[in-house]
């Protein structure tokens, strides 16, 4: 136990820097993934054959292959086609594209759950399709999606750990360099595991707060009236 305290005292600044980058990567990937996911979900529900096909293709590709392979394909593979991206950008793209494919499914599910009754009601007062989607469907669908979607930020946070393999200096990368310094891999990685747990716990608490704040009185996610 005292060993742990000494360890943290010595390496805390470095670990915090790594954790900070991990959180940043998570936030960026989540945001990019949300936009991509939302566009894909809308394309699948409301788009014509072309857009639907495009969305399905994207989703199948990024859910059907490992994140690590996607990462390497972007960072090491694209230069073969003349496109060379920095590590940061490659990591961001891989995480964003990957997350977007998963978020698309959550969002699609809740858009469909809101149902075409709401679409009909919106159009019955003269709103166009897109107005109804923006002012009626999405506000409800996004709220409905929150419980299921809350898995995604935590999942993404955990996936960011693999980007150390292209030398992005996030938490896992710090772990590796510290382990080399201390010659105690098991202890180091265990300590880092605890740091991850702490971050995940905080993230989870934050998400539960958001869920509580966004509740609409009378409109629970379990069942709707009428």
């Amino acid at each position, binding site marked *: 136990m005292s060993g742990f305290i000494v360890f943290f005292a010595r390496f805390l600044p470095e670990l915090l820097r790594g954790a900070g980058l991990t959180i940043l990567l998570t936030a960026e990937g989540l945001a990019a993934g949300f936009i991509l996911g939302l566009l894909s979900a809308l394309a699948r529900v409301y788009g014509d054959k072309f857009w639907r096909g495009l969305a399905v293709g994207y989703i*199948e*590709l990024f859910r*059907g*292959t*490992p*994140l*690590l*392979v*996607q990462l*390497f*394909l972007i960072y*090491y*593979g*694209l*230069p*073969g*086609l003349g496109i060379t991206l920095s590590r940061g950008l490659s990591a961001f793209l891989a995480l964003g594209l990957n997350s977007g494919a998963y978020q698309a499914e959550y969002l699609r599910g809740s858009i469909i759950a809101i149902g075409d009754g709401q679409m009909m009601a919106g159009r019955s007062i003269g709103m166009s399709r897109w107005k109804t989607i923006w002012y009626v469907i999405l506000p409800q669908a996004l709220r409905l999606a929150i419980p299921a979607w809350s898995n995604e930020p935590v999942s993404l*946070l*955990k*996936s*960011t*750990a*693999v980007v150390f*393999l292209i030398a992005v200096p996030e938490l*896992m990368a710090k*772990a590796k360099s510290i382990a080399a310094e201390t010659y105690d*891999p*098991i202890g180091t*990685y*265990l300590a*880092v*595991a605890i740091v*991850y*747990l702490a971050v*995940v*716990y905080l993230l989870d608490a934050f998400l539960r707060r958001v869920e509580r704040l966004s509740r609409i009185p009378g409109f629970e996610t379990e069942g709707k009236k009428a």
Partner: protein
Amino acid sequence: MLVNFVSYIVQGTAITLAVTLIALPFGLVFGLTLALLHTYGGKVLNRLAALYSLFMRGVPPIVLLFILYFILSGRLLNLSAFWAGSLSLGIVSSAYQMEILRGALLAVGGGQMTAARAVGMSRLQSIRYIILPQALRIAIPPWSNEASIVLKDSSLVYALGVPEILRRAQQLSATTQQPFLAYGTAALIYFLLVFATNRALDYLSARTQLPTHP
């Protein structure tokens, strides 16, 4: 050159499949045991299983992989990277499988247990003959999802030096100077493997469905 390319990829695919086929069943047995202990094992075991799940699912798989790898390949057990990696993957998966099976056990419900005891079965018999057959069926769809995930996560053993698809792709990229082709092929193979796995498990799910009211 092409023959080399193909044989390299095929070997990598074989390793990937091997890793997955070791990790999944190991995770299933371990996870099932944990799920049963959690649900039927009394307060202490319940808490322990819950803590295990919380820890294993709150930490990134690759971090756990490294910890377990160093333990399993250390002086005590001295397993090869392949075995250390595969078993580690299985241990990580066991936590997720535990949650899936726990959910399935809950879905079957206490009523079934009550009914089974009422006919005179012991707790163990009830679990074995009544609860499990139903729970396992219910678990198939979410379990298929986990199987896909394990297949994809097997790529993480790359970091342990295991010569699976991604490692081979990297070597190929170096020798052929065609990185996009090499990594693209790796992606394609994973895609096909995941696709085939999903199809196979969907088939299994359909075949084991209990007949419902027409």
